[in-house]
């Protein structure tokens, strides 16, 4: 799905929910997945200048899951390790919300090159 | 040549069956074949010999055997669930092989032919034995999985102890999977019973390390977000020690040593009083 404006967010969330429901994911896991997706898509819009998200149902041989890949051609993240640190306790700006988002999903991967865009991949297995 | 062997087998099917049945009952410690099992075995032997032909006898993975394999898998899984031992499961086919080979040796005189066919039959039945073993294992795993689910359910009951107060005695280790279940359950019950206080009793939790403490803290936070309060009770002295030594900060959480004191606190919070009745003498 292509996300370039705010109004794209809601249909995107609904689409993610559809996929999650299709593989009978529990309500709690659905909520976590959609919340994580919401965080990442906002980053996409705010910092990446928009981009695309690929939603897929996947299987690792043992169970089903949903995979989301967020790609943008924005400025990229300069210091990935800083971005992944939990900054919430300082109460300052919430930044990219990456560490929190990571806790919500089963697998999390981020590739970013300063000046060359960012790709974030998350997977949520049906049973967490 | 091959045809001859095949026709012998088909002719002697019933003798093979008899011999097989006898061997099985000799082995079984308890009552031998029930009617069901006899039918199962008859079906199997029929299917097996039907599947045997010139090409399939050479090839353990021949598609002719698919139906036979399916049958065997079904039998093994059901036996696993019924509590048969692994040995009993394996000897099912091993005695079958013995029976077939015994009959064959009586009918075929030429040792080279006998040997060659022994080998072929052995290969086929051995392969099937492995299949039954795998299926048996899967059957046992299914039982374990089901029991695990049941245990999870039983060990996290939520009890309404008073109007607006629920108690959750946690028994056993608290890992992240269990915490999720506990949290979900607790919060759902809070909504359903409209309770404003939840008492989490951990006297049944053997060890509290930083991970478990984190889980508890998360549960308390989630409860507060929903507008209810959480009291943790059942803190044994060892746990208090461990918590302090690990540097875990529980200052934000109301903790009590016993469920009773937690209940008392809850009453105070809800502005309830327990009074002794005055008897008129």
């Amino acid at each position, binding site marked *: 799905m292509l996300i370039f404006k*705010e*109004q794209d*967010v*809601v249909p995107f*969330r609904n689409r993610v929910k559809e996929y999650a429901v299709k593989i009978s994911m529990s*309500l*709690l896991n*659905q*909520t*976590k997945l*959609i*919340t994580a997706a*919401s*965080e990442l898509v*906002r980053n996409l819009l705010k910092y990446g200048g928009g981009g695309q998200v690929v939603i897929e149902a996947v299987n690792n041989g043992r169970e089903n899951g949903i995979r989301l890949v967020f790609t943008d051609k924005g400025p990229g993240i300069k210091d990935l390790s800083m971005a992944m640190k*939990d900054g*919430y306790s300082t*109460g300052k700006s*919430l930044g990219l*919300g990456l*560490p*929190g*988002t990571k*806790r*919500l999903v089963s697998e999390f991967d981020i590739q970013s090159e300063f000046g060359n865009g960012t790709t974030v991949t998350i997977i949520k297995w049906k049973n967490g | 040549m091959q045809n001859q062997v095949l026709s012998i087998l088909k002719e002697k099917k019933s003798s093979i069956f008899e011999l097989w049945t006898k061997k099985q009952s000799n082995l079984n410690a308890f009552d031998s074949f029930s009617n069901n099992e006899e039918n199962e075995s008859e079906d199997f032997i029929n299917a097996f010999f039907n599947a045997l032909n010139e090409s399939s006898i050479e090839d353990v993975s021949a598609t002719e055997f698919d139906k036979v394999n399916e049958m065997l898998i079904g039998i093994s899984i059901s036996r696993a669930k019924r509590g048969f031992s692994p040995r009993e499961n394996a000897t099912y086919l091993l005695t079958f092989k013995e029976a077939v080979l015994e009959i064959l040796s009586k009918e075929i005189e030429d040792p080279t032919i006998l040997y060659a066919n022994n080998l072929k039959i052995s290969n086929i039945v051995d392969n099937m034995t492995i299949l039954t073993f795998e299926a048996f294992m899967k059957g046992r795993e299914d039982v374990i999985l089901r029991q695990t689910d049941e245990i999870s359910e039983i060990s996290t009951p939520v009890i309404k102890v008073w109007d607006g107060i629920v108690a959750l005695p946690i028994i056993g280790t608290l890992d992240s999977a269990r915490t*999720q279940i506990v*949290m*979900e359950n607790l*919060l*759902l019950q*809070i*909504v359903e019973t*409209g309770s*404003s206080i939840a008492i989490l009793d951990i006297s049944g939790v053997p060890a509290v390390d930083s991970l478990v403490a984190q889980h508890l803290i*998360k549960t308390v*936070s*989630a*409860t*507060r*977000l*929903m*507008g*209810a*309060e959480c009291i943790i009770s059942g803190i044994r002295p060892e746990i208090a020690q461990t918590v302090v030594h690990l540097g875990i900060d529980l200052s934000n959480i109301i903790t009590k040593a016993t469920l009773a004191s937690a209940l008392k606190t809850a009453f*105070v*919070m809800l*502005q309830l009083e327990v009074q002794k009745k005055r008897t008129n003498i």
Partner: protein
Amino acid sequence: MDRIPILKMGDFLLVTIQVDLYDQLAENLETDLINSVRKYNSRGVLIDISAVSIIDSFMGRILGNIAVMSKIMDAQTVVVGMQPAVAITLVELGLPMNGVHSALNVEKGMEKLRAKIFNDDNPGQEDDSSFE
């Protein structure tokens, strides 16, 4: 442009959120709410989120903003009806949600508001019914 309806209930304002809050809508809500607090001299704001199934950091921030803004205008804010799945997710996400009080439902929410307002107006005379 949609706006989220704000109901006046005596001294309090009740806002029921039933749709996904996107940026514009959220900003409008903040503005409308703060204006209404002023207009009716409300002492309390109840935000009903029982129909909200996803709260991300954006939404969390909005709620936090509303709480702070209202406090400045001398009104307390209570969020009611948070869904269990949302609560668990928020905790996992690590959103601080400070300054946002919560209650299980509108009734309890109003009790809480009354207690807080009483405490605020009568410092030193703590009313025990509010245990937060």
